[in-house]
């Protein structure tokens, strides 16, 4: 199972709009929308830090993961292909 972005939950809890958050942390609305829907390849640490600072939370409040052994197999396949 891939890492799930739970930013929507954090936004709802703080009654904050995506547009406001995007402006606050210096992302475009499109980029934030892609992040919320999990359609990004990854998140930079500085973006994560800005999100946490803006929402007053920890990274674990924005990301979720359930263990899946298939994730380890996929990584092994990628390393072999490299």
């Amino acid at each position: 199972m891939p890492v799930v972005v739970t930013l929507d939950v954090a936004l709802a809890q703080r009654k904050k709009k995506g547009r406001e958050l995007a402006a606050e942390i210096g992302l475009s609305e499109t980029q934030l929308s892609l992040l919320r829907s999990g359609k990004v390849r990854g998140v930079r640490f500085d973006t994560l830090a800005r999100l946490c600072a803006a929402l007053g939370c920890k990274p674990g409040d924005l990301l979720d993961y359930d263990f899946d052994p298939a994730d380890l197999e996929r990584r092994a396949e990628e390393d072999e292909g490299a």
Partner: protein
Amino acid sequence: MTDRSLQSEARRLEVATLIALVLLSVGLVVRYLLLPIVAALRETVPGSWEFWSLIGPSLIQALPAFALLGAVEATHKLFGRLGKGELFGDAVGKGVRGIGGSLIWAALTVAVIVPWLQAWVDGKYGFGGVHLDPVSVALAVVGAAMLMLGRLLKRAGAMQSELERFV
């Protein structure tokens, strides 16, 4: 150098290459076409074999220059793309490969095509041989380098797209 300063420099170079392109085109047409036609008109009947035999060699000698004109035109287009902010990617890579292709064509015309056509004009039918000289070798080597650079730029574009998927 920031992207913006790269873009503004590219826009200046786009204008400079356009001026070069126009001057070169006019120069080539005058030097290899108009002047020989004027000279031929003084000596022969227009459309006669003698008329074309006076103009033909000049047109053959012009071939490498016209191939290089293609390289200047491709460079002008490339600066246009860079000026619009397209620094990497397929289109820019294709533009650089276009320059490389034109340089290789120029090398081929100098080394093979012009000697071959000249041999035919001189009545020596058959392959005119390969005439390697520093100009044709340098053009071919730089052209090949541009072809490789074009492929690298395409790869860089793919890497940039991948990076943009990180927020």
